[in-house]
């Protein structure tokens, strides 16, 4: 077959056939309206002058380049995010993320809340890691107020936090496969998640927005229902995780679309502020649980896992390794859990002395930290949250140029951003 053989366009064939039938029946040719539906809405240039150099650069189009709009209501942007993508054909030239579609001003809301009710506001931020969202303010507020949570409360905190990490990472596995067109793994992921969520609802009373941490302890003690469910879950979890892993890891399409895609070097990852599993998948052994130990992590045995490759596949394998590590940690925590109270004595309305405190935890997406400033009143004077997916998102415009549009989602899903956290 020589290369000058033309492949007929099926649409043209269909139109020719329709025109032939119409003329045979003595009808006028059909009127054509509009273009074909393309799935993406193309964006025009903005109706105002560019504000910055970067914006000028983005909106200056060379021959053959085009801007397309992805989102904010796109099924694979993991929430409501908009990407303005500059393309030549199907190859991405540049990307500009446009955020703020889910901005609720949580930092401002927290300035008008008491130290206890802040916990309810931070829950819906990174809604797949609500326990971690509550952990960092609890650490910061306890530092401000100068109290320590009882030992058993710290163990329960570590336990629920690791359970939360398991379900967050197992959902990431499913979403990554879903963004490459695999429907089955997400069903397994949601089964895995549901089991953990049932566990957490047995201890906290809520399925998603737990509102479980308190300044100086936790809301409820771990009850018998929780421990009996935990035993059942623990007996099966390795098997179910392996099962969902088997569906994805060696899949040919999955490997072709992840290995060597979106390679982020360790140096770039540090410069971009990427943290958590994404940073460790680039070979940098930075884990807040080891680097700056908090809660009971100094008493537990674990290693910082890293992968060297830094591509989408490494980020996926990193998550699986961390699920297994979290299960190992949960075993240790349950083994060592002491008896005692779960809540320190704190007054109803907490008024810390004027001061500043910084609390950081390792969330499933990286370094999640809170900087709280107190002026002596019942509300935090300033409540600042550093959300890891907000910062990690900066890697997408760096990685994507030169790749195809379709791979944008695949690489983005491997970073596992949650828009509730990005937009605060």
């Amino acid at each position, binding site marked *: 077959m020589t290369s000058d053989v033309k492949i007929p366009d099926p649409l043209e064939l269909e139109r020719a056939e329709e025109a032939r039938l119409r003329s045979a029946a003595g009808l006028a040719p059909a009127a054509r309206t509009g273009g074909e539906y393309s799935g993406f809405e193309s964006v025009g240039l903005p109706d105002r002058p560019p504000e910055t150099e970067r914006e000028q650069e983005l909106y200056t189009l060379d021959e053959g380049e085009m801007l397309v709009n992805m989102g904010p209501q796109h099924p694979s942007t993991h929430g409501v995010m908009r990407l303005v993508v500059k393309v030549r054909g199907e190859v991405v030239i540049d990307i500009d993320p446009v955020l703020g579609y889910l901005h609720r001003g949580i930092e*401002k809301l927290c300035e008008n809340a008491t130290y206890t009710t802040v916990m309810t506001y931070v829950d819906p931020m990174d809604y797949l890691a609500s326990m971690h969202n509550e952990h960092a303010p609890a650490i910061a507020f306890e530092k401000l107020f100068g109290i320590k949570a009882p030992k058993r409360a710290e163990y329960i905190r570590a336990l629920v936090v690791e359970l939360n990490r398991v379900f967050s990472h197992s959902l990431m596995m499913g979403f990554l496969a879903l963004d490459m067109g695999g429907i089955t793994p997400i069903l397994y992921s949601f089964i895995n998640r549901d089991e953990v969520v049932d566990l957490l609802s047995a201890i906290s009373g809520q399925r998603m927005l737990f509102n479980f941490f308190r300044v100086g302890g936790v809301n409820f003690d771990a009850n018998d229902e929780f421990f009996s469910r935990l035993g059942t879950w623990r007996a099966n979890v390795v098997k179910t995780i392996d099962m969902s892993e088997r569906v994805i890891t060696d899949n040919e399409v999955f490997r072709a679309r992840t290995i060597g895609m979106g390679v982020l070097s360790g140096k770039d990852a540090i410069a971009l*502020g990427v943290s958590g599993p994404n940073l460790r998948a680039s070979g940098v052994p930075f884990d807040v649980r080891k*680097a*700056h130990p908090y809660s009971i992590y100094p008493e537990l045995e674990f290693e910082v896992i890293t992968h060297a490759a830094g591509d989408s596949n490494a980020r996926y394998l990193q998550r699986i390794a961390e699920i297994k590590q979290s299960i190992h940690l949960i075993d240790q925590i349950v083994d060592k859990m002491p008896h005692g109270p779960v809540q320190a004595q704190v007054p109803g309305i907490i008024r810390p002395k004027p001061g500043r405190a910084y609390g950081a935890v390792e969330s499933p997406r990286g370094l999640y930290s809170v900087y709280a400033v107190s002026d002596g009143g019942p509300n935090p004077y300033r409540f600042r949250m550093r959300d890891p997916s907000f910062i990690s998102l900066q890697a997408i415009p760096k990685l994507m140029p030169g790749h195809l549009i379709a791979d944008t989602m695949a690489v983005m899903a491997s970073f596992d951003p949650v828009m509730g956290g990005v937009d605060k």
Partner: protein
Amino acid sequence: MRLLLDRFPDLAQTLWTDEDTVEVRAQGAAIPDLLQRLRDDPELSFWFLADAAAVDYGVDQHFEVVYHLYSDKHPAWLRIRAHVRRSDPHMPTITHLWEGAMFHEREMYDMMGIVFDGNRDLRRIYMSPDYRSFPQRKDFLLPDDAADSPAAGVNPLERPETWDLSRLTEELAPGVVAHVKSET
């Protein structure tokens, strides 16, 4: 900490520590230079920018830009507080040191109105481009939109006439007055 003071003797005046944080203050203009030395000095090697945030200390006061750094050679977080004048809120950028400071600085610009000189992409990040206020400043007040909400008047406490407690009477809000009085 001793090493830090050896290298930067002029920071000793402002040193403050708590259980796991070392805090110093610095002039805004000196920040990029200071952070670069902290990052590139092999004995200090504060390689990770953990956080950059702005704090508003009130209308007649000042802003503060707060950086948190991490180094695996030292156990504590390093916090650097930089003073920014409210009448002329300018800071030099640090995006040439850490590219990832871009979103931090865009957020500070959007929420507090601090202008980072040298940042080549200082746009609004959460609010729309035609927005003109800076919502996280302390003089930005939240509008009282409770009176316009569909549920206005359903709950007696949401009626505007009950917000002033001195005008709160039993027939306006039955049952509420006794409750409010018992709390105050």
